[in-house]
């Protein structure tokens, strides 16, 4: 893949044959992998920063939906038109069904156990950098 890009940019008299389909596939998978990793990272930061149990669930849900689905989309780009792509589509569908079920199960268990959610406006505490 890298060789293809290098060949496309290298100055040469003879017409270089570029497989545009694989170039688009590579670019698409790179973009969606980067975006997916960004959402997974943001979800992780959210789990650490948010104040209580219920609010942390929201950040974890972000990792489940866009993060995981975008990474799966990147893998679909990589595998092209093959049986592996169909398997990845199945994985994506199952993830869309199971992840809200798991999130709801955890939230419902906390509610049943009587965990009171933190309500009202919340701001991150100021960090004292002077010391």
């Amino acid at each position, binding site marked *: 893949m890298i060789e293809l890009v290098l060949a496309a940019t290298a100055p040469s008299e003879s017409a270089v044959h570029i497989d545009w389909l694989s170039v688009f596939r590579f670019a698409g998978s790179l973009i969606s992998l980067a975006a997916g990793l960004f959402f997974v990272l943001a979800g992780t930061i959210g789990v650490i920063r948010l104040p209580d149990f219920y609010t942390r669930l929201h950040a974890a849900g972000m990792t489940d939906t866009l993060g995981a689905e975008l990474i799966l989309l990147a893998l679909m780009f990589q595998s092209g038109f093959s*049986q592996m792509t169909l398997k990845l589509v199945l994985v994506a569908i199952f993830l869309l069904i199971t992840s809200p079920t798991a999130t709801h199960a955890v*939230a*419902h268990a906390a*509610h049943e156990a009587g965990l009171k959610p933190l309500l009202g406006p919340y701001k991150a505490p100021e960090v004292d950098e002077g010391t």
Partner: protein
Amino acid sequence: MFRSALILVLALVATWLTLSGYFKPLLLKLGVISICFVLFLCFRMRILDRETAAYGTLPRTLSYFVWLFVEIVKANMAVVRAVLSPSMEVSPKVVKVPAPQKTDIAKSMFANSITLTPGTVSVNMESDHILVHALLSEMSDPADFAEMGVRSAWAVGEDMGDV
């Protein structure tokens, strides 16, 4: 019932071929045996009805998923912005969302859609409303929930009027 059995067999054949990918006689025979066994189980459990093999509403469900995906992307952006901003201003809230859907499948579709959208989690399901925990104040707007409720009910074949 015969029609749902036929649709179920077609779906099972497609699933088997997707996951296996081998066309050796032995493996195909094993596939046929498994499909017959699953069909027998479904018949015995008396779940060969329209709710189990709900393929009649498949085009509606797919077009609903497109709309839901756009909503998920929008909600993700809002949550990312809130979480990554230095002051992180969130206002968690618990709201009662009315769930006037008649069928069980429409209710579960609605509750799952709420949970799937980041920033809102359905915590408890009571007879006519869902208890929802919302992360940001702009996510607890009743009109948005009402629109999602109508659309998710439409996706599984229950008409609740216009959006």
